[in-house]
């Protein structure tokens, strides 16, 4: 009999993370292809009601412990590995997000099991599970498989639409006893909420996003002017935020905000997966980058291979003229 496919649900601050539904959608496909059951794994403390949202799974394995109240990757791995050892699932799909990053790696290490990171897609070929993984900042993909069991897959956001992982009806819940050592050597003291910025970029119709390609803080001014002409706001990718050129409230991506504007004008942004995660669902994406191989062009609707420092003034002028014509028409 083929062992089950496990999908580890990610829950944080009382909510199931969106990646969980992507994982359930993908897990269901793999389970169906193998003729195996798919079980969801939910870890937390007094979090059982969240299992009702995991209807896509045949069953929810629920691990409850006070130390699982916060999704610490080490504690999660410590709690789950004995159960995985015992039940021998074929594959464990673990979300790879900024909530539980490191969990899949630790779980695989404890189990002595193979692991693949940055998974963008899973499929079954000749009875083997294959994972398509994002490598080198999105410039390459590796198709990998593993003979060892369980195959622990760290799932990157963006593999399947969230709706595909949702199903009505609460699946049966099996509560599994958890043994955890008393000592917790990494402890959350407090959450630090983001400071409200002057602009809420998640509410903007137009975003002019700047990346490393703008080279210097002074060049933000022209991006601001383009944004103003378009009635939008400026946001940025990680390097721009780390440089202190824009506040944290303007960061788009894994650690920052997730945005879905009508227009996302990506200027000098390479499109690393961490950034793409936060803007991939934008209605119209126009990207300008000097590197014709930049991953942002895989996602953008329109692309321009150019230096943003040349493109921005040209664009400012062209849009300015058009608006002038428009206002006289």
């Amino acid at each position, binding site marked *: 009999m083929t062992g089950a496919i496990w999908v580890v649900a990610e829950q944080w601050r009382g909510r199931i993370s969106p990646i969980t539904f992507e994982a359930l959608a993908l897990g269901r496909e793999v389970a169906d292809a193998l003729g195996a059951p798919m079980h969801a794994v939910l870890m937390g403390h007094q979090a059982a009601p969240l299992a009702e949202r995991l209807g896509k799974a045949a069953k929810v394995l629920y691990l409850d412990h006070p130390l699982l109240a916060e999704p610490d990757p080490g504690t999660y791995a410590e709690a789950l590995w004995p159960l995985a050892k015992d039940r021998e699932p074929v594959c464990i799909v673990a979300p790879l997000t900024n909530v539980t990053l490191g969990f899949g790696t630790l779980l695989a290490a404890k189990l002595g099991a193979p692991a693949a990171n940055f998974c963008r897609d899973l499929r079954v070929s000749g009875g083997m599970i294959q994972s398509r993984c994002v490598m080198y900042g999105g410039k390459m*993909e590796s198709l990998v498989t593993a003979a060892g069991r369980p195959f622990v897959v760290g799932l990157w956001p963006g593999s399947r639409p969230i709706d595909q992982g949702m199903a009505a009806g609460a699946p049966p819940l099996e509560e599994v006893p958890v043994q955890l050592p008393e000592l917790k050597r990494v402890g959350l003291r407090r959450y630090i909420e983001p400071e409200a910025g002057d602009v809420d970029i998640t509410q903007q119709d137009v975003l002019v996003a700047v990346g490393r390609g703008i080279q210097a803080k002074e060049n933000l001014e022209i991006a601001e002017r383009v944004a103003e002409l378009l009635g939008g706001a400026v946001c940025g990718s990680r390097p721009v935020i780390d440089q202190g050129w824009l506040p944290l409230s303007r960061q788009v991506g894994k650690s920052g905000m997730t945005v879905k504007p009508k227009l996302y004008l990506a200027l000098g942004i390479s499109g690393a997966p961490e950034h793409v995660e936060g803007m991939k669902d934008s209605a119209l994406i126009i990207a300008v980058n000097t590197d014709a191989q930049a*991953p942002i062009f895989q996602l953008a609707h329109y692309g321009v291979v150019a230096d943003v420092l040349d493109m921005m003034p040209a664009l400012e002028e062209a849009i300015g003229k058009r608006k002038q014509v428009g206002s006289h028409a």
Partner: protein
Amino acid sequence: MDILVLLKMVPDVVEELQVDASGKALDTEFLRMILSEQDAHALEQALLLKERQGARVTVLAREAPEVDQALYEALAKGADRAVRIQAADGGAGTRPAATQFAQVIAGDPVFRGADLILTGTQANDDLDGLLAPLVAHELGLPFLGIVVSVSIDAAGGSATAVREYPGGVRGEFSVALPAVVGIQAAEKSPRYVPVAKVRAVMKSASIGKVEASGIFGQAMPQIEVLEMAKPAAAGKAAMVEGPIEAVAVKLTDILSERGLL
């Protein structure tokens, strides 16, 4: 206070990457190897701690193209000691690398006594696992990743670290030392070091060497790479070409058509 920083060389993704004849790996002929960006941040965080609270900073890296350059740069920036692990052909991937790092650390009294082990939260080639949690696992130490600031608590037995969550939320943690901390970004951008200073260090300082024991990579649960390829661009962008002014006008047309102007 002893801080150990694990450094890893990775392909520079700014360069064009090509797949080799096997169809399963990068063509190394034109590959430029650079220090993994997050490892540069880990080094910076260690140097900030040294300046603020006093520490001895040792950088440790596996044999790799251009690795000496990265190690000398680390010394020029202020690291106290740089050590290269010899004969790093213990198998490709981050898991064999982690095993080797852990063995070298466990086998050296100074490394073993480090209060804090810092490295990047992830690297662009971490296909089979992430280095920081793997090293933590092998050494039986606590792990915290996605960290953007670290300070050693006054008593010295613990650190306060801030890590990121999604949506701009951060979490402040107490971490019992010793621990392995994966750095996402240092509190400041990695410092610049002039070439002249690196050259001077190359003359005055030397890189320590440590032999790795050869037992790694044996019982390692392996993944098999079936193929490597550039992503099949699902909705590849329509490229707008021409002189920059003409491109600007075309983009403006697109915006007009979509009712965005």
